[in-house]
């Protein structure tokens, strides 16, 4: 008989996961990192077939083929601009799988109390993760309103649902009381809580939410690992839980808000009444914008979600090349929470072929704005709002890109609306700011044409 191969292989799997994750944290080695992790995963899946007492092998293979091919094909076909919702939905699938595993484990009823308790926790977190991720997916896909969905008494309803879910979860631990009839309401309540808690979270807070659910799925997987006594799941799940929590904190910090504020405050649901803004919004025509750019010594581009919506990244890259051919250096200022997932702008610009050494983090580039002739703000709003520097504003304390300190600011904007926060942007009224109205892709295209004429 074969010795138990799976545990030694799981150890190798975990080692490769850690090496892979580590390599993924440096730009030069990142690509090899995912290959390491991928190889580790393939090993773990193959060796699991050797687990003692396995049957239903055909069903397992059919399941892997179905899920695997759907995941692969969808991920290969989806447009880069749709990446945030893809990440959200795949993460939700992991949470769902964790919930389902815990459900089977609880149905077996042979488990001791401590391991049932872990399974219940895994089930609850996994269910919240899949439900929340699906709502995030719907919002990002545009199949549901991106603005926070609120109603009176929302927080009370949410807390009641959460408490009810916990109560049923505790009942599951003592099956002699009510039997397994408590399982179904428990899962319904947990899924319901996931949906309810995600409804009031708006689109611009999605970078925090996506990475939070990523961390939650990791924790749910680790809990299942405890219940199944599977160390590969314990370690991999905990790794992701920790890494994901750190990323979530980084994202929240980039907005100077707590995780609790992001999750429970329905930020952006109300429009703030603006006071004390002087000046007017001054429109600019594409030819004038082109002239400004052509005679600039340096240009910084600050992109936001609007660039993603308009799919303007290719045109932006074209504009960058054109300016550089005229000897004008172009840099990109990337705010950590610009867009709908962590690092969203970096991904889009990389897709368009902008080398990543032109992309600068907020801290790296803020000092450059005062010496910059022209800043192009493309579809960004709250992350460049100087109101954040003023106490009393809803954005107060949020670290922003100091674009208003540049000599000239051109804001590409669809209309005169406010940002996601619902706060009027003082930048748009400043003396050195001009607004170029229209779809970002078209606007950049027009500027390119005008530049070529000069």
């Amino acid at each position, binding site marked *: 008989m074969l010795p138990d191969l799976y545990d030694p292989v799981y150890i190798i799997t975990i080692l490769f996961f850690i090496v892979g994750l580590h390599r993924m944290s440096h730009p030069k080695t990142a690509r090899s990192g995912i290959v390491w992790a991928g190889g580790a995963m393939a090993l773990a899946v193959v060796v699991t077939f050797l687990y003692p007492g396995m049957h239903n092998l055909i069903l397992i293979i059919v399941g892997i083929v179905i899920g*695997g091919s759907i995941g692969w094909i969808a991920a290969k076909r989806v447009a880069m601009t749709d990446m945030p919702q893809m990440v959200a939905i*795949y993460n939700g699938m*992991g949470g769902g799988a964790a919930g389902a595993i815990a459900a089977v484990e609880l*149905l077996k009823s042979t488990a001791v109390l401590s391991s049932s308790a872990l399974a219940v926790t895994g089930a609850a977190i996994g269910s919240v993760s899949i439900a929340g991720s699906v709502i995030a997916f719907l919002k990002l896909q545009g199949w549901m309103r991106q603005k926070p969905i609120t109603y009176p008494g929302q927080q009370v309803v949410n807390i009641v649902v959460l408490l009810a879910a916990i109560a049923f979860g505790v009942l599951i631990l003592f099956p002699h009381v009510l039997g397994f009839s408590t399982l179904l309401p428990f899962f319904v309540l947990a899924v319901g809580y996931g949906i309810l808690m995600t409804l009031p979270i708006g689109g611009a807070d999605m970078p925090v939410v996506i990475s939070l659910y990523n961390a939650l799925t990791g924790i749910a*997987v680790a809990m299942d690992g405890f219940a199944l006594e599977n160390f590969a799941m314990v370690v991999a799940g905990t790794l992701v839980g920790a890494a994901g929590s750190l990323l979530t904190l980084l994202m929240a910090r980039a907005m100077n808000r707590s995780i609790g504020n992001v999750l429970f405050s329905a930020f952006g649901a109300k429009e703030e009444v603006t006071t004390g803004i002087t000046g007017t919004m001054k429109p600019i025509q594409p030819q004038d914008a082109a002239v400004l750019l052509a005679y600039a010594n340096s240009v910084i581009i600050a992109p936001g979600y609007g660039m993603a919506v308009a799919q303007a990244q290719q045109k932006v890259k074209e504009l960058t090349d054109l300016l550089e051919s005229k000897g004008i250096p172009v840099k990109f200022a990337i705010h950590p929470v610009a867009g709908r997932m962590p690092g969203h702008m970096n991904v889009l610009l990389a897709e368009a072929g902008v080398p990543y050494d032109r992309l600068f983090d907020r801290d790296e580039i803020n000092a450059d704005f005062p010496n910059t002739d022209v800043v192009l703000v493309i579809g960004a709003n709250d992350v460049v709002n100087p109101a954040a520097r003023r106490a009393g504003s809803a954005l107060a304390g949020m670290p922003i890109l100091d674009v208003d300190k540049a000599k000239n600011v051109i804001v590409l904007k669809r209309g005169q609306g406010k940002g996601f926060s619902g706060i009027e942007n003082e930048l748009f009224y400043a003396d050195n700011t001009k607004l170029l109205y229209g779809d970002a892709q078209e606007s950049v295209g027009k500027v390119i044409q005008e530049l070529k004429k000069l």
Partner: protein
Amino acid sequence: MISILYISIYIALLAAFTGYEVITRVPVILHTPLMSGSNFIHGIVLVGGMIELGLATTPLEQAIGFIAVVMGALNVTGGYAVTERILQMFEKGKSRKGN
């Protein structure tokens, strides 16, 4: 004899620290691939789904186990493909600079 549960908790503690430490100084440019890569790594849940389905005896356990395997597999391949696509683009950007 120390129970397996406590051993697991010790291991999880170390794993949590490792996860935190490995990505502490990650540059912003890699936030998306890192998130999507860790998304892929929790696809290890597929292994759990396989074990549940493999050891399932009743039709209900089989059905739920099967769902777990399908979802886990989706998580694995989708997470991998998304991460690879993103990282490929970063490489493309780097090589163009060299031209």
